[in-house]
């Protein structure tokens, strides 16, 4: 299984890039798990390609062109305004940065204990699941997954389902 791991990236990329990686043929012939993985990735890529191909041709409405044209006219006829705005924004950005650096420095002085960096839950499979999600991990049931998927569909809860899903799949 460990040997398979090194093939996964190449399998995935060859499917996504529609390229032929001849070195994979031997392994795929003898490894059912990697064949299944390849089929899964192919299906995934095909789903997106099919969706992209099915997008209808659209003619941009005249109002879109008009809006863009007037925005450009406006920008071109008042270059001084944009120049001043940009200068003002640059000044504000510099001030904000200075404030940020000062605040950070100040915090460092007051609280010497380093803050644990936030890790990427999406890609780091070794990340410990936060306690609030431990319940999902310990007691997975169809109902809980359904509940999680519902939350996934609702606004703002996008990451949670991913954490839950990743935890579940990693625990298998």
């Amino acid at each position, binding site marked *: 299984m460990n040997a398979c791991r090194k093939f996964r990236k190449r399998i995935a990329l060859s499917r996504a890039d529609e390229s032929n990686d001849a070195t994979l043929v031997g392994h795929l012939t003898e490894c059912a798990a990697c064949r299944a993985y390849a089929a*899964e990735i192919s299906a*995934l*890529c095909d789903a997106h390609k099919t969706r992209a191909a*099915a997008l209808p041709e659209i003619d941009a409405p005249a109002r*879109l*062109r008009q809006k863009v044209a007037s925005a*450009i006219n406006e920008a071109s006829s008042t270059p001084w305004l944009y120049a001043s705005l940009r200068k003002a924004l640059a000044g504000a950005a510099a001030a904000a940065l200075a404030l940020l650096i000062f605040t950070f420095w100040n915090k460092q002085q007051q609280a010497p204990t380093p803050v644990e960096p936030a890790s990427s839950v999406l*890609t780091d499979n070794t990340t410990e699941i936060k306690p609030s999600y431990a319940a999902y991990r310990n007691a997975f049931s169809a109902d809980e997954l359904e509940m999680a998927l519902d939350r996934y569909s609702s606004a703002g809860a996008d990451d949670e389902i*991913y954490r839950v899903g990743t935890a579940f*799949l990693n625990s298998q």
Partner: protein
Amino acid sequence: MFSLNPALNAIKLEDSTDLLSRVQQGDAEAFCDLCRVYDGRLLRQAMALCQDASLAEDLAQETLIAAWKSIRRYNGRCRFFTWLCSIMLHRYRKLLRRKRPAALTKETEDSLLNVADAAASPATLNEMKEQAAFLQKCLDNLPHKQRQIVYLRFYVENSLEEIALAVGCSVGTVKSRLFKALENLRKMRALKTLNVE
């Protein structure tokens, strides 16, 4: 005042090189003509991302205006449309942070499917709509850098080399991000299958 030239309705993509060099010299009228070449395709991609006609139009508009403002930064190393899509993905990222796209309306759902599919049975159409919404939801849940690569590969049909040029990173980085993205999408898909069963 710059105006839209109706005679330029059917500019072909291959004619846009000359327009592009005029645009880069600050010719706003040429930019409006260039918009006519790309705005339909751009709106189509925006519809795929937003799944909402009004949001998609706003996104395409913001993208074109942002493109005009930074046109001098386009270095010609990737296709112009790819460059436009990269800008659009950045704007879309902001949109996602501000507000999740609204649920699909019946009209939008229908407009996202090709007329060629009209012959399909209602059940098949329904399945296609659900599939499209699910795929977009998965894309929305990817980190921006991974979504960018997947989108440029499968929706804009760029090669990995073109994506590297458009995004400004190495082909190796594109490959790493694409692999991570596929792994993440695969897990999301597996989770859905699990739920259905």
